[in-house]
């Protein structure tokens, strides 16, 4: 306990280590928050969900916060649903017909046009479909007739696909035409309160119509959306526990096994040591990523398989030589000789006498290795060997680049996960480097 306090006292001398520690704690808290608020199954079903889940989100929309850096705001995404009590809906039943009047007023203050405008109708009837007439009232009081049509149980009306409406709006695309001043034909939306009016006629007593208006803006949520309308926040959130788990497990697995092998090699010496040394040399020339590519393409891309492969390939890495050099010194110390004198077994000496002495040296190694494996996980995902199910940071980068995010200027898609990766990597590296300087007295003086 005292040693731990001393260690923290020493590490607080290094500002970069303090910053790193705070960032790591933040990341761990963020991961726990993610796992608690967005359980695994829910995240997977959301991430693999199709248009049924994501019909209300725009395609490749930028994150909300970009409006903080702009003078003229880009439109946000919003929706109004009469089934949820938004807007007003009146019904009047007489002579066997149900007259329905729906009014959905909304503010539109951006000078830019929305990406898309869509109305999702739902209706109840047994035999005869209700009929609706759709109008838009602009802030200047002008009335734009949109269309009239019969509504099935589920009906989707997309403004952008209405060719007739486009002709009536002087050839302007409908989602733009209804928001602009048609007199001047300036490509700028007129701000103010718009109103969507739907007059419907249903031909049965309990038959009714509900409408949901979705105005797809250019920004959505705190992280934006991708080409399949999915909210990037999900992948950003779930990337944290996945990356941390992979990085920590791989670093721990590698360093601990490497250390035990090095300890056994130095203790037994002779041919055991020789074999370990030769395996290390063979391992040095095995192309790491290429072998992982082979495993990924021929066998399995699952994250756990990759984790095992990564650890197996890293055990006989360069670290073994550092540990070996240190164990050679410890092996000669008097207390090990004393242990041998009282008849301690080989295993006991290795596990109870050699290994504990090396742990201070192991800790910075371990912390420095974490970002290596965090980035390795991202690398594997980016070259297409990522876990097929999990939403991760690497997957965002891969999909972003693969779908032309850099060419079309959708930088948020690639840069957000990249910046989080950078923060994760740097926080561990800063702590590890400081620990290295504290524990390696040779480095401390300079």
């Amino acid at each position, binding site marked *: 306990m005292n040693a731990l306090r001393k260690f923290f006292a020493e590490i607080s001398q290094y500002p970069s280590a303090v910053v790193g520690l705070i960032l790591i704690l933040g990341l761990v808290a963020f991961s726990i928050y993610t796992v608690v608020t967005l359980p695994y199954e829910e995240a997977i079903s959301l991430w693999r969900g199709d248009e049924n889940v994501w019909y209300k989100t725009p395609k490749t929309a930028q994150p909300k916060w970009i409006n903080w850096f702009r003078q003229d705001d880009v439109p946000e995404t919003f929706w109004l649903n009469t089934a949820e009590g938004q807007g007003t809906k009146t019904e009047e039943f007489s002579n066997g017909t149900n007259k329905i009047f729906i009014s959905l007023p909304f503010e539109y203050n951006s000078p830019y046009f929305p990406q898309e405008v869509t109305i999702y109708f739902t209706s109840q009837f047994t035999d005869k479909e209700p009929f609706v007439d759709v109008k838009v009232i602009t802030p200047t009081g002008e009335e734009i007739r949109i269309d009239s049509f019969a509504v099935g149980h589920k009906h989707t009306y997309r403004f952008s696909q209405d060719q007739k409406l486009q002709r009536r709006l002087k050839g302007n695309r409908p989602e733009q035409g209804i928001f602009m001043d048609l007199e001047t034909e300036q490509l700028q939306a007129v701000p103010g309160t718009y109103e969507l009016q739907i007059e419907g006629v249903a031909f049965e007593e309990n038959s009714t119509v509900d409408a949901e208006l979705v105005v797809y803006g250019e920004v959505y949520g705190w992280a934006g959306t991708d080409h399949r309308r999915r909210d990037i926040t999900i992948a950003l959130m779930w990337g944290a526990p996945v990356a941390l788990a992979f990085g920590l497990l791989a670093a721990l697995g590698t360093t601990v096994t490497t250390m035990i092998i090095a300890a056994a090699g130095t203790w037994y010496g002779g041919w055991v040591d020789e074999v370990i040394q030769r395996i290390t040399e*063979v391992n040095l020339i095995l192309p790491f990523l290429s072998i992982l590519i*082979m495993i990924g393409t021929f066998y399995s891309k699952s994250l756990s398989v990759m984790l095992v492969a990564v650890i197996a390939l890293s055990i006989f890495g360069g670290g073994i*030589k550092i540990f070996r050099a240190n164990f050679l010194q410890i092996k000669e110390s008097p207390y090990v000789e004393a242990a041998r004198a009282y008849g301690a077994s080989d295993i006991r000496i290795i596990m109870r006498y050699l290994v504990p002495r090396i742990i201070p040296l192991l800790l910075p190694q371990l912390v*420095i290795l974490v970002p290596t494996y965090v980035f390795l996980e991202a690398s594997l995902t980016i070259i297409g060997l990522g876990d097929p199910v999990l939403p991760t940071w690497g997957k965002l980068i891969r999909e972003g680049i693969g779908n032309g995010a850099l060419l079309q200027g959708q930088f948020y898609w690639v*840069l957000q996960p*990249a910046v989080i*990766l*950078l923060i994760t990597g740097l926080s561990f590296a800063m702590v590890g480097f400081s620990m290295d300087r504290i524990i390696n007295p*040779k480095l401390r003086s*300079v």
Partner: protein
Amino acid sequence: MAESTLESPLPVVTPKKEHDSALLRVAKYMAVRLVTMVFTVILGLYLTILIANMGGYVDQIRRGEIRDFVQQQVRNDPGMKNLSATQRSKIIEDRIVNAEKRLGLDRPFAIRSFAFLRNAVTLNLGFAEFITADNGSRMVKNIVLERLPSTLMLFGMTNILLFFGTLFAALSLSRSYGSWLDRLIIALSPMSAAPGWFYGIFLIVIFAAYLHVLPFGGMVDVPPPDNRVDYALSMLKHLTLPALALALNQVAFAIYNNRTFFLIYSSEDYVEMAKAKGLTSRDVERKYILRPTLPTNITNFAFLLIGIWGGAPIFEGVFNWPGLGRTQLVAAGLFDTPVIVGTTVIFAYLLAITVFLLDFVYALVDPRVKIGSESRSS
């Protein structure tokens, strides 16, 4: 990559003989290294083959392909139309057995793996299934040899530049110990935690996507310029971002590492002595500080280089560089087994050659090899 105190791979040194010349000792050392390296490479290749076969999984794929191919062949043969179903299936089975025999699939894998090993060692890498070389050849060997120069150019050039650049930067930095530049380098050294491709993404966003001054990727303009000067200039333009990405990844850490060793060695007594003798600071640096740290620096550089070779597929993938690594990625995407295995074999060779060359340089600069002393650094 905090392998700064790594022990260098020295062999068991032969007993000291007074009359051996330094040259002979280096030659002997290298001969021993060469023999061990050959064994290491063979073992490494064999392991690669074992992994590639993945417990018979690849054999299953190949058997399935053979069956498919033979069935297609028989079905499309007009001469077989009139045969009965049993006759036809007998012909199919016969042909499958023949084809498997021809490809050696009937022998147990333990024996076959040695045939594979012989092929791998002699670079007889078979034929690609989908990928072709630019001259239309399907031989994996030709595909690999065609892509190899661009990989070597990218990594070779940038790494040599970085090695000498960081060495001399560190030397001049060790003079101004504690300055703001020195502290900046220490603060930036954790940047090595992120790999080169990662900085590549940021560089591509800034210089290619936003500023439009440098290309997104590739090796030369499309179409490639006709005359040589333009070709070289275009290549240089495409090399800038990858080189910069590798530099961002390594520079701070390499300078920090080298500088630390220079500082440790510059407080040695013999350096003080040299200064007291009145030697110029240039001479002191060259002969008394740089010289004894070179073996350590070269070992560090070796590990760095090996790490970078390992990351070639993704680095080339991000920069769309038409080298070996990207070929491997494309092959992985197309399930082109021979190309995947072939490129892996070549990467193993490249790593072995790198280790051997660095050993050679090491033997040249490390006085312990030349003198033949048995002392080892720890």
